């Protein structure tokens, strides 16, 4: 049994030595710069401090007007929210989301820029949050 382990390990070791790295360059964040030019947000999630969703319904994303409209529950604390963007393949977001975000300033909505896989196309989305009114 042991000799089979040794033989397969030896073959794998030789295989690793000869494998070439992929041909895409890497940007300053360690992400691949590919050939994709698509640049859009496919989904926007918003979580509260307990990491449960605070949206009342799906976010409305307008790719032409570059807006994201979300309605949150009555009583949501807007100072401690965790946004989650779903982007198209290979795209990245700027500024990076590192923790909680303060969305409480409704007169100055936050803007996020999506950068495409080939890093050539940049689109800036504005996030508009509406709090469910008390009936």
């Amino acid at each position, binding site marked *: 049994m*042991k*000799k089979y*382990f*040794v033989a397969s*390990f*030896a073959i794998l*070791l030789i295989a690793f030595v000869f494998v070439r790295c992929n041909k895409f360059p890497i940007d300053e964040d360690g992400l691949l710069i590919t050939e994709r030019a698509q640049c859009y947000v496919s989904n926007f999630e918003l979580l*509260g*401090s*307990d*990491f*449960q969703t605070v949206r009342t319904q799906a976010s409305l994303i307008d790719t032409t007007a570059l807006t994201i409209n979300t309605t949150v*529950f*009555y*009583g949501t*604390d807007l*100072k*401690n929210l965790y946004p989650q963007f779903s982007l198209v393949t290979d795209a990245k977001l700027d500024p990076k989301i590192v923790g*909680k975000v*303060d969305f409480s300033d409704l007169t100055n909505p936050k803007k996020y820029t999506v950068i495409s896989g080939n890093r050539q196309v940049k689109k800036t989305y504005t996030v508009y949050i509406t709090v*469910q009114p*008390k*009936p």
Partner: protein
Amino acid sequence: MVVVIFFSSCKDKEYTIPLPKTGLNNDCIKRSLGPNIVGMNIEFTYAMALPNATGKLVSSQVEATIGGAAGTYLENKSYYTNGSGVDIGIVVGNPSVTTSTKTEVTFSKDTCASTLRYFYYIPEEARGKSVSFTFSAKSSDGESVSYTMGPYVISKMDMKLDMVLSDNNNSYLSIADMAVYNSATAVANADKIDLVYLYRAITGITFLHSLVSPANTEYLPGVTLPAGVTKSTKVSKAWALRDFNLARLQYGIYIDDLDFDVINLKDAPNYAINTKAEAGVWVETADGKYRAYVYVNKVDNTAKTMTVSIKRLQVK
């Protein structure tokens, strides 16, 4: 290449049957898990044995560095688990005798091997300190052995289980007192009231069971606060944090003193609406003296009640 050669030159070792030990031997394991909270117990099992031909067990003793609270005992039964998974106890000794820090059991049956359980009820004097235990056994041939366990740090936190809050009745919660007040008794303890519980079923929004600071009247619809009840307490919702000591469910997660020291509630709001069963809230009192975790055991929409259990640490 070198690695391949290295691996192929290793050989399997021959297996040899281990030799049994002679004389009196012992072993000990700690059975309880989680933080050692004052008022709860630390459980051990202590095994002692010697060869049958050599002699029998005479006595077993546990000495704690800080004497246990009333109820500390060394089991005088030896347990085995039967086919149905039930632990059956066989009396092997006299009931344990505790004198200050020592708890002793004298064997009354001839036995050369026994495992006894030890329950140490954590006293108030041990709060925040370390406790060590020395387990020892004596046999009829004059031998004695001992085993040291510890040191174990005793938590500084307090805990209170199953407090019932009810809407428009016993709805005033005090973290400082770990107590629930109604509108009459709240007046006398106005400066201790940290949170108000209310239940509202308002169509169009999800309000339901909520814990709100008295200072935030926007989220206290239909509530008339007693005079002097005005505090603003920081509240941060947590989801599925079913602490084992508070929830007493099957989840093995424990909140310890360290969790209260590191949690940052600086930017937390002072209200939490729509709290659900098996969720909880982290709380920091207005004066910053206490941090607590209030776990929601259950909620009742018809009776408009919420049962909570609290772990609290004085941080200032």
